[in-house]
């Protein structure tokens, strides 16, 4: 136990941190994968269609590329910086663009037995509100997952975490199998990076928003 005298002369004690981490990701529910079927004009109906097309993880089409797992929560989806970046990832992921296959970890439901459609709907609503154009074609190039991928599936892939997601549910087996762990989001992302670094034992990368690709206004007289 480390300690040092404080300014008042009292001894200040900092106990060693007890890192409450899962060695192996616990299986909480049935691992389901749903394809992206998003008509931004009707996200609720799209969520029902996507849920109806969901398959058990073992039956889904095999991922031929390394995975990019992005864990979501409704609070994370309310972060405009995170949502803007996510929507661009989804736009490209739905078309199979990029070296990785995007897997979105669905927000946990309000109750243990919540319908899959009710877990998908907030994600689709947020993506529709982002104003980023996303193809409404059915795509298995992007998956919506009820459970994190296995360590074997995650090998060589990437994990993106937001401070408002239940990242502690992902075990060290999966986190250490990934080639990269990164944090994303707006306010507080740097302090979350520091906290997550302490928790993981290594410093995660900071995902910088692709400002060039993101939509933002131009002004008269710009000479960039």
């Amino acid at each position, binding site marked *: 136990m480390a300690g040092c005298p404080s300014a008042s002369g009292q001894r200040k004690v900092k106990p060693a941190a007890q890192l409450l981490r899962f060695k192996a990701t616990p299986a909480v529910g049935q691992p389901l994968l749903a394809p992206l079927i998003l*008509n931004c*004009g009707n996200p609720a109906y799209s969520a029902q269609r996507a849920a109806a097309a969901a398959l058990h993880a073992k039956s889904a089409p095999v991922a031929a590329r390394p995975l990019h797992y992005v864990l979501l929560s409704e609070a994370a989806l309310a972060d405009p910086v995170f949502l803007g970046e996510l929507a661009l990832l989804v*736009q*490209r992921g*739905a*078309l*199979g*663009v990029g070296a990785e296959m995007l897997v979105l970890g669905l927000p946990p439901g309000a109750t243990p037995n919540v319908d899959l459609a009710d877990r998908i709907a907030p994600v689709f609503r947020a993506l529709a509100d982002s104003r*980023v*154009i*996303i*193809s*409404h*074609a*059915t*795509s298995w190039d992007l998956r919506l997952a009820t459970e994190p991928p296995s360590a074997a599936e995650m090998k060589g892939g990437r994990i993106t975490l937001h401070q408002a997601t239940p990242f502690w549910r992902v075990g060290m087996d999966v986190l250490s199998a990934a080639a990269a762990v990164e944090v994303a989001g707006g306010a507080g992302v740097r302090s979350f990076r520091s906290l997550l670094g302490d928790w993981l034992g290594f410093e995660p990368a900071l995902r910088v928003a692709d400002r*060039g*690709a*993101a*939509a*933002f*206004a*131009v002004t*008269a*007289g*710009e*000479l*960039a």
Partner: protein
Amino acid sequence: MSGAARPRLAVDVTPLLDDQWTGIPVFTRRLVEALEASGRVELEFCVRLNRLPAEPVRRAIRMGSGALLRALYERGALSAAGAIDPAVPLFYASVKEAPGVALREASTIHDIGTLTMPETHTPENVRYHLDPLRAQLRTDETVFCCSEATQAALVTAFPWVAPKTRVLHQYVEWPDNFDLLDRNQRPIGLGRYAVAVGTIEPRKNLGLLLRALEHPQVVASGIRFLVIGRRGWLVDQALSRLGTEARKRVVFTASSRNS
């Protein structure tokens, strides 16, 4: 003997979803017709990153309206064609809503009035054009401008775009036998009219023309003002400034194709 395979080109035909085709939808129609007539590319059609079957697009072009095409698209009846292939070059006939998705992209700038004269547009229109503009230009391999004036205005605002701009004229449809048609036109005894053709919007100086109706000499002449074109934006403000007498001398017609 089979010929060499033609390169594929996807054209974003979002403007064709409009009911009434004036301006940009007409440009889009003529662009598609010209590309098909050239026989040099294998054309594909798309809207907002979704492929469209060719036949409904060609039917809309024959009909001169996108009402049916839009109804089919919004109902999901055209979704079987799937998403676009990002490997196929993508040519936007107007605003590029999803910059940087395809490996090779080009788009068309019709005017940058939303940037230089935003007061003549609604805020939604300004946002629609300007939000993606920088990314649109940055990700374009070629930026087509529909006139030299548009090209000059664009390059003034964004000098770094100059090397990749090209002018693509498609607006004017001038039949070969126009002189003959004009000479044989029977005189029309309808009195004196001034006519404005085009989408009705402030940038076309419609407000100024309407105010001219109240000039004493114009009032004395008995001239009437005929406006032919799709109703655009901010029209009510222009009309509200007119007096009752002047308003009686303004006639709005239905839209005219190719106006």
